[in-house]
């Protein structure tokens, strides 16, 4: 369970503070694979960053006893001048992976970048970087994976692999996912949270959530 206590979050701008959340309290239940639905700019990525502790709310707090991943977005924490394997080791080291060599090997197998894994990330195609980022997160055992539109860039084969990996982990891990492709979400999730005007609503059934979201 992830608890949001009276969260207020805004970003300062020329037009005054842009509020994303105002005094929001919410509980995200555990044991579900949750799709986050919301229009552009509704605050989905901000919500992720708050959950993961990448950013802090202006007021209030986020409480959880779960081990959450970092928000796995397209190229989080990936440095262009470092090779794929160096990036993987860096991420492993930061997250306290016990056996870095083993971890690197796992990422190498999962990402399937071939020889490119040992070349600087700058040389990767736009579809390959997210694969690396995603493989890095899959290589570590988290309770909850926060995935921000990463899976949608992979090719069919990679998606299949992603699905398998997440299914294999589904006994002891869950995923919270942002995507604008409903097929993608139906593939991975069973319930939904609709984010609208700074308010969250939980739907136990994904289809119900999608219906409400599309009706907005």
């Amino acid at each position, binding site marked *: 369970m992830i608890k949001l206590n009276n969260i207020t979050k805004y970003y300062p701008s020329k037009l005054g503070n842009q509020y994303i959340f105002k005094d929001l309290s919410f509980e995200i239940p555990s044991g579900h694979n949750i799709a986050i639905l919301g229009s552009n700019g509704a605050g989905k990525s901000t919500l992720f960053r708050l959950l993961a502790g990448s950013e802090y709310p202006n007021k209030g707090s986020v409480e959880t006893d779960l081990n959450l991943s970092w928000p796995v977005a397209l190229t989080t924490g990936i440095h262009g001048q470092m090779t794929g394997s160096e990036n993987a080791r860096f991420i492993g*080291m930061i997250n*306290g*992976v*016990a056996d870095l060599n083993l971890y690197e090997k796992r990422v190498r197998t999962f990402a399937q970048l071939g020889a490119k894994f040992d070349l600087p990330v700058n040389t990767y195609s736009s579809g390959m970087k997210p694969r690396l980022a995603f493989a890095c997160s899959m290589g570590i*055992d988290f309770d909850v994976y926060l995935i921000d539109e990463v899976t949608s860039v992979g090719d069919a084969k990679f998606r299949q692999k992603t699905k398998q990996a997440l299914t294999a982990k589904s006994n002891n891990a869950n995923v919270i996912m942002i995507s604008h492709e409903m097929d993608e979400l139906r593939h991975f999730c069973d319930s939904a949270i609709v984010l609208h005007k700074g308010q969250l609503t939980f739907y136990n059934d994904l289809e119900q959530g999608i219906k409400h979201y599309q009706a907005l």
Partner: protein
Amino acid sequence: MTQIIKRNNWAIWRDVIFALFVREIRTGFNDKFGLAWSIVNPVAFIFILSYMRGRMDGGETHTVPTFVFMMYGMLLIQFFLEVMSGVSGSINKNKPLFAFRQVQPISSMLAVSLFQTLVKLFVFVVILVIMYFLKMEVVIADPIRLMINFFLVGLLGFSLGGMFAIAICFVPEFKKIQSMLTRPLFFISAVFFSLQDIPAEHRYLFDWNPILHAIELSRYAAYPSYGSVGVSESYLIESTIVLTFFSLACYYSFWKQAISR
């Protein structure tokens, strides 16, 4: 299955700082010269300038060989400036990495400082070796005092850099103010002259500057005959402690908001 070690906070800090440190080495230098450039560049700069100046007056400045006199001045001011600019730029540079909640801004600030400290220590050693081969006299009368001064200069750079780093997150214009403020430091910190050259009644124009104290005291530590006219170790230590305290206090109160904008 990948095993995650349960680490206490210190272990997390240590791992993160080490990871950032390696990353700093790996990505700071992107061309063929690589890491060597960070050593060669200051060594060449310090060496050529000191050597030319030494040739010009052909000998000693207040009993210290002019080459050594210049070398300490430039080494310490460069150390200060580079730690400061490195630290103040580190938050912005590593912003994407704060997505990992284990990575806090102060880790990247410490990693940069550590890196610069090692680079400058190495530069110092290289210069000493070159001096040895050129058959110049290598004298360091009080190495411990010298090391303490070196450390204090680093800490000063870290503190001031840290304050600017936080300020820049809120008001980016501080970056410009910082470069404007640091530019004259090269000329007012007794790099090219000694405080002894300044008439006593005008020393107040210069002796507020702790870096000047550190440079003069380092020369004094290497050559006791140089003397420590108008400077004091306790002023250096006290001003460093005050600035460090203030800087850490700023950091503690504002870091979360600084990376959440």
